[in-house]
């Protein structure tokens, strides 16, 4: 079941990203706004750290995704052996980086008035105004990714304590798998939107 859901959801997201690149209208920045990614701007020590944390988080997420999903999706085997050790070893790096990012980058990712208007517009199923801000998507996916990282991490750490029995352990493993899959999908969309925004602004 899980491999099928994974293949289908990964395919859908990838296809969606490609379609989005090709057919969606190009959003423009609001007046006075400049396009900045986490690694742009002044090169203070904190900025460098932010940039490093971002790259580490992305790199570790990629390795975590490959190590966690490759064997399962390609060979039908659960993660084991040295791959498991690599996976578990990198997990704290990813979570610590996320913690750092959310503190240092969270303020920039707050929804502003334009984002709220766009969201209200979307919720009312109105046709999006092309003059609206293009930031809503990547901001939402950022917060969603942060949110999903919590169950993905906690589910495995909690299973290391003598709290949950066999059924609980299986539930935690299930939670870890699905929240990780969702985290990966959201991260893919987030990266796509950030790259697209950067490309538009440059």
């Amino acid at each position, binding site marked *: 079941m899980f491999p099928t859901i994974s293949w289908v959801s990964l395919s859908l997201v990838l296809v969606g990203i490609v379609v989005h690149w090709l057919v969606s209208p190009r959003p423009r920045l609001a007046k006075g706004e400049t396009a900045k990614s986490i690694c742009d701007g002044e090169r203070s020590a904190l900025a460098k750290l932010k940039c490093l944390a971002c790259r580490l988080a992305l790199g570790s997420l990629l390795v975590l995704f490959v190590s966690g999903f490759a064997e399962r999706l390609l060979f039908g085997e*659960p993660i*084991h*052996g*040295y791959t498991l*050790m690599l996976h*578990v*070893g990198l*997990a*704290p790096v990813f*979570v*610590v980086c*996320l*913690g750092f990012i*959310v*503190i240092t980058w*969270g303020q920039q990712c*707050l*929804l502003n008035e334009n984002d*709220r208007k766009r969201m209200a517009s979307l919720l009312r199923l109105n046709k999006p105004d092309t003059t609206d801000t293009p930031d809503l998507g990547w901001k939402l996916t950022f*917060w969603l990714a*942060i*949110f999903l*990282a*919590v169950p993905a*991490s*906690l589910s*495995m*750490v909690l*299973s*290391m*304590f*003598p*709290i*949950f*029995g*066999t059924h*609980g*352990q*299986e539930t935690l*493993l299930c939670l870890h798998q699905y929240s990780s899959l969702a985290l990966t999908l959201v991260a893919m969309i987030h990266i796509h939107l950030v790259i697209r925004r950067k490309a538009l602004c440059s």
Partner: protein
Amino acid sequence: MKIRSIRPLCFLVLLAGGVVSANSAEKGKGLGDGHDGSLAAITHLISLYDEKGIAIKATDKQPRPVSMLKTCGECHNYDEIAAGWHFHSGSTNSLAGRVGEPWVLTDSGSRSQIPMSNRAWKGTYSPSDLAISPWKFLKRFSSHYPGGNYGEMPPADDDEDADPEEFLRWPISGQYEINCLACHHADSRQDQSGAALQAARQNYRWAATVASGLATVKGNASELDEFYDPETEYKIRTTYDKSRFDANNKVFLDIVRKPPASRCYFCHSTQDMDTPGKSEWTHNEDIHLASGMTCADCHRNGVDHMITRGDIESLSDLGSDAAYAKAYEPTNVAALSCQGCHLGDAAAADPAARLGGHLGAPIPAHKGLPPIHFEKLSCTSCHSGSFPKDKTGRVRTSRIHKLGLHGRHAINKKLPHVLTPVFARMDNGKIAPHNLFWPAYWGTLAKGKVSAIPPDLVKELAPDALGLEQKNVERVNDWKPLSEKQIAGVLKQLVGEFDGEAEEGQPKPEPVYIAGGRLYRSSNGVIVSEDHEAAEAYKWPIAHNVRPAAQSLGANGRCADCHDTNSPFIFGQVEVDSPVAPQGGRDTTREMVEFEGLDRGYYQMFAFTFLFRPWLKVVVILSCVLLGMVLLLYALKGLDAVIKAAGKK
């Protein structure tokens, strides 16, 4: 007229009655095997019969011993019972089933310990391969033998290969019939040590009678002349306890359907050699027995006596021997495994059995134990046997070491040195605790296959090279050291003895010696040793004693019981036991990982990561708390914005 017509009718009725009666007499074989649903105990106030089917009376002047075949067989189907696990071990077509404890042919003179079985377990030899006839088998193993099969296999009249002596000895000793009372007689007077004593005297016909406490026997069949006529001479005298007979010459036997555990223990005890003798009282028994259960609560059987072996895994997961699984009808006995009782078995026919909790078994939570462990390990890995230590310990078992013999015929048998617990992979791929010993024997190597040479033959061919003293050789019951020079001497003696066995155009069989996991051969007069499949240790999975839950490996989140760089479970040392002193700095131990089929480097590294696990937990939890607090903070801010926006409108 009426009478005329009634006569043929009566005749027909009588004839029909006779036919029905004859049929039911035939079918009545097994009259007592059924179950009418009453759970009340059945009182066995019965007549005793001798082997000729003649009822035994208290007043008999020359009473003969009780025949189980005739007495119990009066109401129970002896033939069907004889096909059960305990009684068909001598058959060459017996079910193999899960690998189990073999008979072990030990001989300190020839430095041999050979696992024997007719069940085709890997590493065993059939008794016939070692020139062990049923008679010889009884002589060696009847102290802990339930009777039947080999005990009832005298040589056929036209058997030209049989030892002539056996033709003469069998009628004197009689057959060793299935001793039903050994298990089902709950009377405290039942004494299997007494049966063993009679067996040692070759009084097989009398063994069951003496053990039951019904009679005393004087005389020793092994000392009687070969031409002694048991029909007319009475040098073995049976004296019944007359107080046991009632006015109708019937005897009450306290027969129970479910044997008490103490009966099973005679053949199925294990002695921990780390604290034997005076410290024996410190040991705990199996937790199931301590909680009031008996062996037969789990090890059950029908009239076929195919006792469930309490399979440690679900029967659908046996991994071998389809015939065995078929014989058991897994859906019927699914509840009688560890998993079946404690967790429930999805394969069970009874919906209740799918839920577990059978016989009040607690359903374990296994808190903190990742489910992957259930795929890799058997239940017994964590719960059974002695708690693993850095190096394997030794045990003795009833059947191999002849425990439970009291008085002067007690023997302090030390060989083979059975090592435990050895964690090894079973046929189904799971790791389980095993008992193990290292086979040792002389053999011939041809086409890469080793065939054992009977120890007696080796002693006959090379007594000097073996350094056998002619006096009391058999009384030495532990290893006598064997040097490579002696091995060379014996192999030299054996060369040429087996040339005739080679097929035309095939290489001559090469004499070899196997011990301590090595195959020794002579190469240009020099003894060399090498690894060989035939030299592999013989091991069988164990399930008892089951330790209390708190003493299980990994209980209460103790991951380090196994995932530690020094964990005996993975890195323990298994003793290599051999009469040959190790040469050239060869190890006297082997690592547990070899038997488990695990990658040592990986598990060392994996165990090493557990040192950092507390840090990992702290870091991840703190990070998650941080993420959660930030999320909460911004969520509250968002809520604040929503409330303000709503307020403006």
